[in-house]
């Protein structure tokens, strides 16, 4: 009998000279990188082009100014903004901004990294109004605080929820006793998420097999 094996998707390292057959010239933007480097010097911490798409890394203290500069240059539309947990020792969180120039057909990705010791970064709502709800979502899911956001409340989770669910250490099934449910009858006490409480004390996501070091 064949023994079962658990297969993981291999992790792709970025290949510098990779060719993306679907890449469009709209996303390859060396001149935007040069423009930001001129304007901010050390504020631009790096750039990379992968599969024909340009990404600029900006120091988090200057991200609002950098976006302001790009906005003035014609990138007038913030298509997307999100966070991710890189789960590393330093610069644990990353926030990305996808900006578009609708008139000249250009796209650029800007990224900034936030360390766990200081979760504050400047808000982009002063530059792009569409950043409002995106930043609320990032705050809800990762606990990053956007300074200057006028209404930084939780987006999806109840406002008195105490955890940040998309951080890697948060168990998939939730934390027992953290989310109230209405009782069966009117006036009955709230019950507290019966499902994670009924499972074993170790969250299931901690019991899953891990990637072996390769």
């Amino acid at each position, binding site marked *: 009998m064949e023994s079962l094996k658990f297969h993981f998707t291999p992790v792709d390292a970025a290949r510098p000279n990779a060719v993306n057959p679907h890449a469009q010239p709209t996303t390859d933007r060396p001149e935007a990188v040069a423009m930001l480097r001129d304007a901010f010097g050390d504020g631009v911490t790096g750039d990379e082009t992968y599969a024909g798409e340009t990404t600029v890394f900006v120091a988090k203290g200057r991200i609002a100014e950098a976006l302001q500069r790009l906005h003035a240059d014609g990138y007038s539309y913030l298509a997307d903004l999100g966070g991710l947990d890189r789960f590393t020792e330093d610069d644990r969180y990353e926030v990305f901004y996808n900006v578009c120039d609708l008139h000249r057909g250009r796209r650029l990705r800007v990224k900034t990294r936030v360390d766990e010791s200081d979760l504050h970064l400047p808000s982009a709502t002063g530059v792009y109004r569409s950043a409002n709800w995106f930043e609320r979502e990032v705050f809800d899911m990762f606990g990053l605080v956007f300074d200057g956001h006028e209404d930084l409340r939780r987006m*999806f989770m109840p406002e008195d929820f105490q955890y940040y669910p998309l951080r890697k250490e948060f168990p998939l*099934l939730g934390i027992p006793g953290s989310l109230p449910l209405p009782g069966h009858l009117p006036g009955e006490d709230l019950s507290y998420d019966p499902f994670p409480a009924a499972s074993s004390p170790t969250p299931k996501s901690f019991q899953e097999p891990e990637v072996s070091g390769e």
Partner: protein
Amino acid sequence: MADPLFEEGFLTTRLDYVVNWARSNSLMPMPMGLACCAIEMMAFAGPKYDVARFGSEAMRFSPRQADLMIVAGWVSYKMAHTIRRIWDQMADPKWVISMGACASTGGMHRCYGVVQGCDNFLPVDVYVPGCPPRPEAVLHALMDIQEKIRNDYSLAQDYTAGKIETLDRALVGAERPRIVAPDGNRIVTPDILYTQN
């Protein structure tokens, strides 16, 4: 109806039949469309599957005018409080259909934000399996509810299980009246209504 002559006599049981016939053929659904299942619920109401054949075409978005809640889609913990509140605003008698895998069990959303089955806070009458269930399955659930109503007691009292007057309000709260066993304040499950034809 306090007179024993009327309690389980010819008049009240015939009247019961008429009331239940009217009630079961004019259910007004409250469409609690929460996710993708709501699309199939629209098909169920639309002209092809045509729920008007069963008298339920009048979807009411006001809980005061509805007596059948169709929970269609996954229920997040945040939404659960709203659903419960809408349910509490609906006038008695009222019924619930839990439509789809997500509303019944949490389905594939086996994660922190989704209630693992809306029966954690609602008294569900019919569960419909499927992801999403076909509109026929929802029609079948509606017919099950109709059958349940036709077998219910609305005016006549069910002496096989005890008198309704012995109902203890503190035990059942403001819920719809339940049958209480003769030996005290124990609520009898509705199965007894089906076993004693």
